């Protein structure tokens, strides 16, 4: 990877982006839909019911979770979810967090692929729940989160 060019490109694009940015979204428009209860739920069942309407799912190996075996830093755990299913939504949970729900992505025409970085308080599973044809499918992957030996 050539980071020198990568960096230059990023700087250039963000400058264009700033010029074009405008208030296209007003808070009132979207806040109403925010499932606050689901994000406050202390268990995965409660979190899922609130976020996607149900907590019963089928395990599926067709959901791929790319996440590290050992997190370099629990506050920045890269997670990528993809699936071959026609997905309506992808929901990410961290089952060992106080409040397991991390985020839910509504794929309105987007491909069944989401990549982000999440916080994990301790070792646990990243749970990916995919809604396809109105049904829920899930897969999980364990990520170890340990305090570093070098004060990390």
């Amino acid at each position, binding site marked *: *990877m050539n980071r020198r060019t990568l960096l230059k490109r*990023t700087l250039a694009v963000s400058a264009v982006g700033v010029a074009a940015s405008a208030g296209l979204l007003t808070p009132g428009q979207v806040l109403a839909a925010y499932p606050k209860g689901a994000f406050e739920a202390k268990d995965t069942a409660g979190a899922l019911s609130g976020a996607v309407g149900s907590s019963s799912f089928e395990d599926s190996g067709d959901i791929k979770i790319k996440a*590290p075996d050992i997190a*370099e830093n629990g506050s*920045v755990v890269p997670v990528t979810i993809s699936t071959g299913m026609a997905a309506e939504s992808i929901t990410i949970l961290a089952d060992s967090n106080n409040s397991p729900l991390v985020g839910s992505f509504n794929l309105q025409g987007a491909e069944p692929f989401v990549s982000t970085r999440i916080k994990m308080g301790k070792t646990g599973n990243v749970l990916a729940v995919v809604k396809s044809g109105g049904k829920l499918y899930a897969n999980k992957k364990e990520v170890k989160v340990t305090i570093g030996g*070098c004060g990390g």
Partner: protein
Amino acid sequence: MRKFVFAVSAALVVGLTTPIIVSATTPQEDLKAFRNYYYEKFPDVPKEDYINGIYSLNKDFREQWENQEEFPPYEEFIEKGEEMFNTPFANGKTYADCLPKGGIGTRAMYPHFDKESGTLKTLEEEINKCRKANGEKPLKYNKGPIANLTAYIAYTSRGEKFDTEIPNDERALALYEKGKKHWYMKRGQLNLSCADCHMYNSGMFARSDQLSPALGHLTHFPVYRLKWQGLGTPHRRFGGCNKQVRAAAYKPQSEEYKALEYFLTYMSKGLEANGPALRK
């Protein structure tokens, strides 16, 4: 006549107190042995990849690191450093006026031995000398604005190779030996030397941290550490290392740390400058 006696006795004193410098190995021999140690220990690591620290050894960590490099968190500090670099001092002069070669692309020149003064020159110290010479207050050495400046200078130096020399000058050799001694000497309540972790146990885990090889350790500074959530200079990192083995840290830009930086940079001779970099 009196002068002559003086000269003779001075020569005698030097002769008596310097045998320590005449070590069993030359810096050139040390460098060869140091590199070979890692080449043999990690035969699968491409030699030029040691600049990437632990990510040269661990694929799982490397993927997490590369993911973050998509939008490097040190980017904004390079921008701040560039702005500082290009903003004239109150007297109208700039860093480019007093740093060698205008400062740009010069990270790999440091540290180096200065024949005239018989001392080591580090980038951070040269920046502060430049400020003082132009009537500005010196910057603090560990982090903050000085690291932003060195981040910008390092960024303009990416790809330049370190070609550190240990000239055949008693003073330079003494500084080299001082740094080498710091590297191999056990210290602190944990009784660990730098070499214990980053040489003999490199690749091993200390809890969830894997110990990085020291080859390439100085190529990527200043470094953005997730732990710091910000940039730090090499001497900030040295201080952290000393404290982690429960030893007292030396002051940044102390002769001790400058010597260690000199030794370690020499051990990375021939590798590319790749700072600023992201580390755990």
